[in-house]
């Protein structure tokens, strides 16, 4: 009897005694708007704020925190977290969930990203919204799982077989991890495609103080729903700059989805005209809307004679190098693409017009520099300085400055 009473009492006061979890603490801090968080945490919270309600993934360093946080958070919000048997199953499950109406995301790193490529192509050809976050590590193969590299830039563009345009975003700070995750989900919904978010390993694990916006200031885009009766519905309608409505399974629009080349209704076709139409549609969807897709940061470029072109964590070092060079009176500026694909050809070409030297530092054996070479190949008056490294170490500001001076 006595025992029972004590037990009942303990149960009653339990909620007050419950230790707040790390995330609840984080959430509290967040209400105060300033919070210290990792890039991976920022991705997870960005995803939630953008309305992500489905995550399927497979553990892989250095992206695992994204899965861990969403495993904790999604069930609380009525969303689904599922750990699949591999990365192929993960991309497949998020694509299936998206067709059922979910805002779906997965996170991985190089080896998993390679496995997902077929599924990414499927999401693109079937025009199914989804987001793949790739926290890059040193490759090829297993490489250096806890070290930083930017080796998947071209894979993000060309990894899947066949021609298919890509939307790939590249943040350089924890805050931008949050913002670009929201943007990635928004763009995937708007353009009905698989959007890729590339993070550098260092960024995924780096902690920075971030002021997250009020939810009222977060712009969330969701797919357009069809308003026509089911028998008029075309799964791949051609109006409005190729941004067509998307019905979900179970809503009365019984359509077909296939990875085969298909017609506007989604049925397989071998007709040359219909095949050409589909391919053009996939291409134009991106090229017609390039102004909406491209984001590029220009830093001290107004009077610059030397431009550093860098993305992600390397751009952080480059920014410091710009300040150091400016102190020595060297007119240097920085161009940093937030959208690396579609590559901002026109914007970059314009910004490099008055520049004599372009410095391209990157943590790979020359992936970003190919695009710059392509843009400046007809110019005899410009010089290109490449700084490339794949050994797990970062490129420092002084190194950029030194190589720049040597090359000038």
């Amino acid at each position, binding site marked *: 009897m006595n025992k029972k009473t004590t037990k009942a009492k303990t149960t009653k006061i339990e*909620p007050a005694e419950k230790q707040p979890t790390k995330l*609840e603490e984080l*959430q509290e801090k967040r209400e105060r708007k300033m919070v210290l968080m990792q890039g991976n945490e920022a991705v997870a919270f960005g995803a939630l704020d953008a309305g992500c*309600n*489905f995550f*399927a993934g497979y553990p892989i360093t250095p992206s695992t925190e994204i899965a861990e946080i969403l495993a904790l*958070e999604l*069930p*609380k*919000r*009525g969303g*689904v977290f*599922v750990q*699949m*048997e*591999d990365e*192929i*199953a993960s991309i*497949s*499950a*998020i*694509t*299936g*969930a*998206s*067709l*059922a*109406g*979910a805002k*779906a995301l997965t996170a991985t790193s190089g080896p998993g990203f390679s496995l997902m490529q*077929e*599924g990414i192509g*499927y999401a693109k050809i079937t025009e199914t919204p989804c987001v793949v976050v790739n926290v890059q590590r040193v490759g090829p193969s297993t490489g250096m799982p806890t070290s930083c590299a930017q080796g998947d830039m071209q894979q993000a563009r060309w990894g899947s077989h066949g021609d298919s345009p890509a939307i790939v975003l590249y943040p350089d700070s924890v805050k931008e991890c949050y913002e670009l995750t929201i943007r990635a989900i928004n763009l995937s919904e708007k353009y009905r495609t698989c959007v890729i978010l590339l993070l550098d390993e260092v960024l995924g694990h780096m902690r920075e103080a971030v002021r997250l916006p009020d939810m009222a200031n977060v712009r969330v885009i969701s797919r357009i729903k069809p308003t026509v009766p089911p028998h008029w519905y075309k799964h791949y309608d051609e109006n409005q700059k190729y941004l067509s409505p998307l019905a*979900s*399974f*179970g*809503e*009365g629009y*019984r*359509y*077909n*989805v*296939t*990875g*085969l080349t298909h017609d506007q209704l989604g*049925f*397989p076709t071998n007709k040359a005209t219909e095949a050409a139409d589909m391919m053009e549609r996939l291409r134009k969807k991106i090229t017609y809307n390039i102004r909406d897709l491209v984001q590029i940061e220009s830093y001290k470029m107004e009077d610059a004679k030397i431009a550093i072109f860098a993305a992600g964590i390397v751009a952080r070092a480059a920014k410091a190098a710009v300040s150091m060079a400016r102190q020595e009176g060297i007119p240097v500026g920085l161009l940093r693409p937030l959208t690396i694909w579609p590559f901002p050809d026109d914007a970059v070409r314009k910004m490099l017009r008055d520049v004599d030297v372009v410095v391209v530092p990157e943590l790979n054996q020359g992936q970003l520099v190919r695009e710059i070479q392509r843009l400046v190949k007809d110019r005899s008056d410009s010089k290109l300085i490449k700084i490339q490294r794949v050994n797990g170490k970062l490129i420092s500001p002084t190194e950029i400055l030194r190589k720049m001076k040597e090359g000038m």
Partner: protein
Amino acid sequence: MANIPQRVIHDWLRHDKKFPHVWCAGCSNGIVLGSIIRALAGMDIQRDDIVMVSGIGCSSRMPVYVDFNTLHTLHGRAIAYATGVKLHKPHLKVIVITGDGDCTAIGGNHLIHAARRNIDLTVILINNNMYGMTGGQCSPTTPHDAIATTAPYGNIEPDFNICDLAMGAGASFVARTTAFHTQETQNMVREAIEHPGFSLIEVISACPVIFGRLNKKGGAPQMMKEMRDNSVPLAAADKLPPEKLEGKIVRGILRKEIRPEFCAQYADLSKRVQAMGGEK
């Protein structure tokens, strides 16, 4: 079958531009499709709530022809896509159409894990003993010594027992039948759809044009006859001595048990976490 008029199958098919279908004369896939449609027509399910998912292969072309929500996915991945659909909208009836190569070779990993999770999918695996669409290559269910284009001197690998595999992985409903036994297939499909958990039906089928020709099995009628004569119902098989069961197809519901279903468990978990006071 008697109480379902012939018109039913016609009603449940898509007619605009989809026919003629891709299957060869004598193929069992259409017969199995007939059984599936008759099973569904006899149930109280709206077509809007049926999602038919498939991978790649001859049998996987089936969804294109039927008037449901249809999802023709990548080779081997049908169950993984179906898992995503089902988890996001658990009220939908998700049926996976797959083949022996699709489901047990390239997709074997997804099969065993979906069975382990006991997610409420109905997998109808049409087993024709080799890869038909690519022209007769050896699959995990090609019998020992059988000829395939990639086993021209006879297959030296042992074949999978698909039902044993599914049961070993934890599937809660497992059945085997043949394309000859249409009424049995129809009943099994119905029971599998009604079963709350992962269900797999292996339908042994005939591919007279490729497998039959390579292995001198005769034409479609001979292969149909073989399915009839060479199979025994489970009840009869139990009474037969093992030597008489050698090489026979045992038909019937091999396992049916109730285990916690994955989507239901997830819903419970979600409810529990929310009751604990997870913030919005």
